[in-house]
């Protein structure tokens, strides 16, 4: 029998090693973890990428050891049941798990059906399911989403539907894996108030996040992991005190950017004049078959040696804009110019010499057998001679902090953060004068983001025109530079210096 004072979850000396872990650097994903989680707790589970957070969550849901063959020692008990002897779907009634990517967990095309899935599986009567779905939607404040197609929802809406689809089972624990990555500010606000409301009803919330500091004072407990071990478990306030001041608020980054301005005021002024590296005038684009344009009358001019941050909610047109820079998409109206030349009629491969674009999913470009060959792919396509490439590989690897990795390592066997850095390196290898990065920080932890911001500043100082689309305000501050806001396919706040185009 479980009583109110008993812990909901106990983790007793849990260690876990993934099968074929030898390929990756980290062998043991969890290293003698002992925890106890009680009812009504509000927990922030933080740590750098690869520290074992997600593995721990999978162990709490029973996916480990049920689905993964790795080596598990120790014991996990959920509501008095040993996870080794309980089926995943039975544990699911007690522990709800919201995955990092709402797209990989949304199974149906309609919000109602999505929320009903778990209840349908349990064989409930149709009328009872309808009541439960309506009740849960009401409880979570998403009644307005019922009846809509899941594909038509924004990222944040899909995430809230994912929470609802789990909460219909009335689990006593809700785990969310990095729900804030890829979520815009409004979406984040709605999600956090939803979690606060659930917690008030007595649901234990475990929120996984790589940032050490998040909503100071909101969580009642923080667990920090490093290299598979719990290195801190206590009140959130103590960790906030430990984090260097400024790291959370972004003032440190802003200060660096400020210093940079002060050091080279003349240079900055020079950067405001002359031929823009990239210029868009009156650009409008509508996806085939879409009713509303994705971009409307975009005017912008970005000079060499500057950093520009593009902000805006999900679906505001940032990614579409980036595809126009190198001709992946062609404007319906208006022109795109690279160093004063209209790119109409130029092939993407040709424009790519000058404009390097990295889409949101760095992973999607890795395919080679070794890091070395991955880095050479771009330059070889461009016809850059191999001696120049040899020299550049060393530079880029040092710059991106992947010099310690063996060049013969298959990129796909690396950790998520490392893959992201290799992908960035592969794009930097092309030595383009314009660098456009769409959400480059997905999968990078705090320290790596800071490093990336430093790299981008170095590149800009060297004369590269850098563009970054990001939701991450801290990272944006670290990069410094001008900020452009987008909403509904329009530029709402143009960067200073782009006036008079």
């Amino acid at each position, binding site marked *: 029998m479980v009583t109110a004072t008993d812990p909901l979850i106990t983790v007793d000396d849990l260690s876990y090693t993934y099968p074929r872990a030898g390929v990756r650097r980290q062998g043991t994903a969890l290293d003698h973890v002992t925890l106890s989680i009680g009812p009504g707790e509000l927990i922030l589970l933080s740590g750098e990428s690869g520290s074992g957070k997600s593995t721990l969550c999978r162990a709490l849901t029973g*996916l480990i050891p*049920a*689905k993964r063959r790795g080596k598990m020692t120790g014991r996990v008990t959920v509501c008095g049941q040993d996870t080794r002897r309980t089926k*995943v*779907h039975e544990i*699911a009634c007690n522990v709800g*798990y919201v*995955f990092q*990517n709402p*797209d*990989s*967990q949304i*199974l*149906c*095309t309609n919000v*109602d*059906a999505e929320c*009903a*899935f778990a*209840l*349908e*599986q*349990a*064989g409930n009567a*149709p009328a009872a*399911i*309808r009541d439960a*779905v309506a009740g849960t939607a009401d409880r979570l404040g998403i009644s307005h989403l019922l009846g809509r*197609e899941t*594909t038509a929802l924004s990222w944040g809406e899909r995430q809230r539907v994912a929470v609802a*689809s*789990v909460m219909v089972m009335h689990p006593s624990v809700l785990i969310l894996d990095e729900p804030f990555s*890829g979520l815009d500010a409004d979406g984040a606000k709605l999600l956090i108030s939803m979690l606060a409301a659930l917690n008030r009803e007595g649901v234990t919330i475990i929120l996984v996040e790589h940032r050490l500091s998040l909503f100071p004072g909101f969580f009642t407990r923080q667990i920090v992991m490093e290299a598979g071990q719990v290195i801190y478990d206590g009140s959130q306030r103590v960790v906030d005190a430990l984090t260097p001041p400024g790291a959370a608020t972004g003032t440190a980054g802003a200060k660096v950017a400020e210093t940079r301005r002060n050091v080279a005021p003349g240079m900055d002024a020079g950067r405001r004049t002359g031929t823009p590296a990239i210029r868009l005038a009156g650009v409008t684009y509508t*996806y*085939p*078959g879409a009713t509303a344009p994705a971009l409307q009358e975009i005017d912008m001019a970005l000079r060499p040696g500057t950093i520009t941050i593009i902000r805006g909610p999900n*679906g505001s047109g940032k990614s579409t804009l980036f595809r126009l820079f*190198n001709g*992946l998409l062609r404007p319906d109206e208006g022109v795109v110019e690279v160093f004063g030349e209209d790119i109409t009629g130029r*092939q*993407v*491969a040709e424009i*790519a010499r000058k404009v*390097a674009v*990295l*889409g*949101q*999913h760095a*992973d*999607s*470009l*890795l*395919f080679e057998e070794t890091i070395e060959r991955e880095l050479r*792919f*771009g330059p070889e*396509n461009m016809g850059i001679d191999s001696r120049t490439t040899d020299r550049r590989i060393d530079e880029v690897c040092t710059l991106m902090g992947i010099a310690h990795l063996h060049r013969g390592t298959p990129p*796909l066997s690396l950790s998520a953060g490392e893959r992201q850095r290799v992908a960035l390196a592969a*794009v930097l290898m*092309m030595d383009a004068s314009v660098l456009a990065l769409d959400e480059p920080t*997905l999968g990078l932890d705090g320290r790596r983001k800071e490093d990336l911001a430093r790299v981008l500043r170095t590149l800009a100082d060297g004369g590269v025109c850098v563009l970054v689309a990001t939701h991450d305000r801290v990272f944006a501050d670290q990069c410094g530079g001008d900020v452009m806001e987008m909403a509904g396919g329009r530029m709402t706040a143009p960067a200073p210096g782009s006036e008079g185009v």
Partner: protein
Amino acid sequence: MIGRITGKTGRRGHLIPFIAGDSVVHRLDPRTKLALLLGTSLLTLLTESPVVMLLLLIAVAAAAVLSGLLRAWLHALRMLIPFMLVIIVLDLFFSSHASGAVWWSAEWWLLAPSLTSGGTAFTIAMALRLFAIGGVSFLFVMTTSFDDFVGSLRAMHVPDTFSFSLGFALKSVEHLSRDASSILDAQRSRGLGIDRGLMRNTTGMLSIFIPLTVAVLRRSDEVADAMQCRGFGREEETTSIKEYHFRRLDAAFVAALAALAAGVFLISS
């Protein structure tokens, strides 16, 4: 991370989209629609008469008119034109049904094309069969949502693993095409020239194929986990949030199908 390939790029067109609506065809019980789909397809396979085939195609077109999606339906049918051309070339000149009056014939090396009255009638029937089967299938997809399709299979007590997998496989085509286009974008941004013959060069092919395979494997793994965490794998029989009822409207359509079948048999015999 790869799973994020979807995200915000999903505004590109679907091959044959489901178009929500409130027409009589939309309101039919999905089981009725499945029966109509299978029944009509079966009837086209039972006959080789061009007249009967035309009758069936007209019946399907009438259903398309009732669905209010005539224009979109005709648009989708255009995809069948290349297949129709293949049928015409093969069946018209190299028909196994060459009979009746010979209008033209020739001897070209190993080929002996001929144009006969029997062959022409057969070709017309085959082209009409293509449009009848294609047309009824497209109409089914355009008026039945994925959830209704899975729901109807469940309601017929088809094992859940089968019905859900089938439905999900259809849905995955959409994910796959989105993944493929975003991978293609990434590699083109690295200077991969598809216009210079992507398929001639092994590295170029691998640069698309490998990330796509990784994406598919990762997605299937994630989806499997997500399903288990939502109770998939129980022994209980699953239910559906929607209840499907066989109504008068469904009876009318089934009666129409029966009448059509009777007509087909009368004409054929």
